[in-house]
């Protein structure tokens, strides 16, 4: 272990400028002085700064997050811990969460994305779960923007570089391109883990005298004030912030997973927490606060990477692959032996007290003395002014030009937002652990629960253009689409994790988007019995005056009791019936057809009827589970014709179908009405009967067969042509000169 040489702790005068540099406003600083009864020193100011940053304190968002439903019989642990936990039967639990790493990934895409994966993995194995699947939701700027190619390349390589090495399959994700992300990309990473339901570990420190243990990598100067950076908008100097991006070491993470799980198999641990944003500060304060304990820390015992680090730097470092835990007394040697076997640092850095205070020592001197609860719990909470988003006009199909449907389909399938993501997912090891029973490219990925016939279905979804046009409907839609995607593979949706990516909350218009999205999400989660069990908020996603599209990414998790009864999107056999389930009105407002073919981004998004979602989805799940349907696909971006094309390409089998007379053809083919599924089955009749009985609109529209998509009027497009445009866009784009 490297000991830092005694260096005097800097002790500058705490000026207004220094306070402002730490992201605290005048009222917040007055509160600091009130809590302490004096002015803080620099170490203490740094600690307040990160603990009260938007990233750690949720001060702008808390009021609205509290309105989301978070309970249900399946919920073992809701928001407030490192990750959410749901019951999956047989004494097993799924542990999952999604988290953003937006700002670092824009500045340094490979390391930013890689450490995003590392951080979310730690949130999950901290709770005693073995990570079994990774997902990601990515938003990049316009393909024409000079930085986009470099960012795509770096982010994808970083996600793969980390996940592939730790040996957790990356099984699903979503990618959008839009100019609103030109200066502020989004990288949201989600991890799902498996644990025994009665062996969940929590971030609670209790028991005066119990040792506080530091394990994992050494602490360096990387990432200092990362949480503060994540709580401010970007200016022109954003790339100068590169030194605040951490560097990931997936090999150490892999060792840390194995060592922690090995120790967790004993009963030596009282509480455990990873050191994520705000590092040692946030982990120690959160654990102590939740457990009602006080802490004495001796920073001379912290393993450091370089000599001469100050208390300020050690407390605020965001070096990766580190954990803090509290052990039962006398169990140190047993724990140390496990970490030494895995060649990881292990250090007793302090002990718990009953003082309710955090007392931090360095070089034998006390460098900070802070009350724990006021810092961790009494963080500021704001009710920021907000404005609702004005309603957008409905767009009638007749106001949108009807292009040749096959030409339009080819253009959509070869567009940036709808083309094949193969170039991306082939860089992710999606098969390691030998349980990926449904691979990327379908509605949801399915990972078998190891050693059983159960499966976990997982998906990430959001349609930011809908949220921009109508935050309430957009919030509903993000949840509903995630629920549909799980349903479409035959799973029962259990719960969600949300990653709320928005602009500057101090702007009432942006705050209104956040408020509206929370309202819509809450309504959908309630109606669908699909509670929020974990999440993350990323605000200030702006560069200059440009805010991103409001992007509440939803990570959904569902359970399949038997993976033999799982649906995929691929057509399985010729001469099967195609049945469209749900009501088709031909809603073209905010559709991809409108944007890609008519060149317009306007109108109201499709409304979400939550009762219809529930009714239609419950029917589809039943049809899958009783073996009535052979293939199923949720209808979303691009509407019916895109869904047909995706099913045909996946099965390498065409189809022939007829449109009804009562809806304009382009609106029927490309409208993005919600609560719809397309299924294939040997017979249409049983599906139509079951639909009628359930009060669900359903129509037989055609049959599988041939090697093209063929309308009844004779117009057709071959699968070979479609596959070429669909597969070509991303590789061609990434190969082109930037």
């Amino acid at each position, binding site marked *: 272990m490297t000991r830092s040489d005694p260096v005097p702790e800097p002790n500058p005068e705490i000026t207004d400028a220094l306070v402002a540099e730490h992201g605290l406003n005048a009222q917040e600083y007055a509160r600091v002085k009130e809590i302490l009864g004096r002015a803080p020193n620099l170490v203490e100011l740094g600690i307040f700064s990160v603990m009260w940053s938007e990233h750690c304190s949720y001060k702008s968002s808390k009021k609205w997050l509290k309105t989301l439903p978070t309970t249900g019989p399946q919920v073992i642990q809701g928001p407030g811990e490192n990750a959410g936990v749901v019951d999956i039967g047989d004494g097993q639990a799924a542990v999952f969460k999604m988290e953003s790493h937006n700002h670092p990934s824009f500045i340094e895409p490979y390391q930013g994305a890689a450490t995003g994966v590392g951080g979310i993995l730690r949130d999950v194995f901290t709770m005693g779960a073995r990570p079994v699947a990774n997902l990601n939701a990515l938003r990049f700027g316009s393909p024409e923007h000079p930085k986009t190619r470099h960012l795509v390349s770096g982010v994808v*390589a970083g996600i*793969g*570089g980390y996940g*592939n*090495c*730790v*040996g957790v399959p990356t099984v699903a994700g979503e990618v959008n391109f839009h100019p609103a992300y030109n200066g502020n990309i989004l990288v949201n990473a989600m991890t799902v883990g498996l644990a025994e339901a009665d062996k969940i570990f929590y971030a609670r420190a209790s028991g005066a005298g119990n040792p506080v243990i530091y394990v994992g990598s050494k602490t360096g100067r990387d990432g200092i004030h990362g949480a503060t950076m994540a709580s401010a908008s970007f200016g022109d100097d954003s790339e100068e912030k590169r030194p605040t991006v951490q560097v990931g*070491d*997936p*090999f*150490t993470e*892999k*060792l840390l997973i194995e060592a922690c799980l090995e120790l967790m198999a004993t009963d030596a641990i009282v509480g455990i927490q990873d050191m994520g944003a705000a590092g040692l500060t946030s982990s120690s304060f959160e654990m102590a606060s939740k457990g009602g304990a006080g802490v004495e820390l001796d920073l001379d015992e912290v393993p450091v990477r370089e000599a001469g680090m100050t208390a300020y730097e050690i407390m605020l470092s965001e070096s990766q692959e580190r954990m803090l835990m509290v052990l039962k007394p006398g169990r140190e040697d047993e724990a140390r032996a496990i970490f030494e076997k*895995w*060649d990881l640092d292990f250090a007793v850095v302090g002990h718990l007290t009953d003082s309710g205070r955090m007392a931090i020592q360095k070089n034998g001197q006390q460098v900070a003395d802070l009350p724990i609860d006021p810092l961790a719990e009494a963080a500021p909470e704001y009710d920021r002014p907000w404005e609702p988003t004005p309603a957008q006009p409905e767009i009638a199909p007749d106001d949108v030009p009807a292009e040749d449907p096959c030409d339009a389909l080819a253009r959509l399938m070869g567009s940036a937002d709808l083309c094949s993501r193969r170039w991306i*997912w*082939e*860089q*992710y*090891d*999606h*098969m*390691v*652990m*030998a*349980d*990926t*029973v449904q*691979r990327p490219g379908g509605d949801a990925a399915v990972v*078998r629960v190891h050693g059983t016939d159960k499966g976990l279905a997982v998906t990430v979804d959001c349609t930011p253009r809908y949220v921009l046009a109508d935050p309430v409907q957009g919030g509903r839609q993000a949840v509903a689409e995630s629920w549909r995607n799980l349903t479409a593979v035959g799973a029962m949706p259990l719960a969600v994790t949300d990653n709320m990516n928005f602009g500057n909350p101090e702007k009432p218009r942006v705050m209104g988007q956040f408020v509206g999205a929370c309202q819509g999400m809450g309504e959908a989660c309630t109606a669908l019995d699909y509670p929020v069990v974990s999440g993350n908020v990323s605000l200030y996603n702006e560069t200059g005056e440009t805010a991103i599209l409001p992007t509440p990414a939803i990570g959904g998790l569902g359970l399949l009791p038997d*993976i033999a009864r799982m649906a995929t999107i691929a057509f399985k056999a010729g001469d099967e019936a195609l049945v469209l389930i749900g009501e088709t009105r031909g809603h073209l407002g905010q559709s991809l057809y409108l944007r890609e073919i008519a060149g317009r981004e306007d109108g109201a998004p499709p409304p979400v009827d939550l009762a219809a979602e529930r009714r239609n989805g419950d029917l589809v799940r039943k049809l899958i589970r009783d073996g009535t349907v052979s293939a199923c696909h949720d209808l979303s971006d691009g509407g019916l014709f895109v869904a047909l094309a995706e099913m045909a390409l996946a099965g390498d089998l065409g189809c022939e179908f007829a449109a009804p007379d009562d809806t304009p053809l382009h609106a029927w083919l490309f409208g993005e009405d919600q609560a719809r599924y397309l299924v294939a089955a040997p017979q249409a009749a049983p599906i139509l009967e079951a639909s009628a009985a359930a009060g669900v609109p359903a129509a037989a529209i055609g049959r599988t067969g041939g090697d093209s998509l063929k309308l009844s009027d004779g117009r057709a497009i071959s699968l070979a042509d479609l596959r070429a445009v669909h597969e070509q866009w991303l590789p061609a784009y990434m190969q082109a000169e930037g």
Partner: protein
Amino acid sequence: MKSAVIVFPGSNRERDVADAIERTTGTRPHMVWHKESDLPKVDLIVLPGGFAYGDYLRCGAIAAHSNVIREVKRRAEQGTAVLGICNGFQVLIEAGLLPGALLRNRSLRFVCKEVGLEVDNADSAFTHRYQRGQRVVFLAAHGDGNYFVDDDGRRELEDQERIVFRYCDAKGQVTPEANPNGSVANIAGITNRAGNVLGLMPHPENLVEPALGGTDGRAMFEGLAEALS
């Protein structure tokens, strides 16, 4: 068949291959930690996929100098069957048990996808359940699988029929387009001169059951059990 799977810090397909062996042969392998200098008496030693020691030096370079590898080399010289998959293949090369080198993929990107393989040698303990010329599908999942050997080395491998698998297309043709990583002569797997050590990049262990999308890997483990029991 008694078998052992060597576990390095950073191995990540040790469970996959142990499960595949158990699923296909009925017997679970011993898991042997890299710091051991002794190996149980076994018929087959497996070096699994992963990123031993993080692969921060050349892939497999540090693992090749671990305690247990000295014993693996001794057993290999005595004729024990040794199977190195992916990172295990890289370790076998670094340990000098197989010739050549594994370089970064030609694309410079990690690649995870099913690959077609032509079985060029169906006489080994590893491949006798396959037919010569048969096309099988295994799973590639690697960033450094670009096999290199110089012209003399390649001729030697060919003359001694030590090239066991080559990447091929859906029709079984060994073409440049079917080569996922730039390997010389589409080489995916080779044996040592004695034929008891096989290294290959693609993973047979990930396609041994219909639920995972394929079963072509089964015959390798079933064949080993038959040949070695």
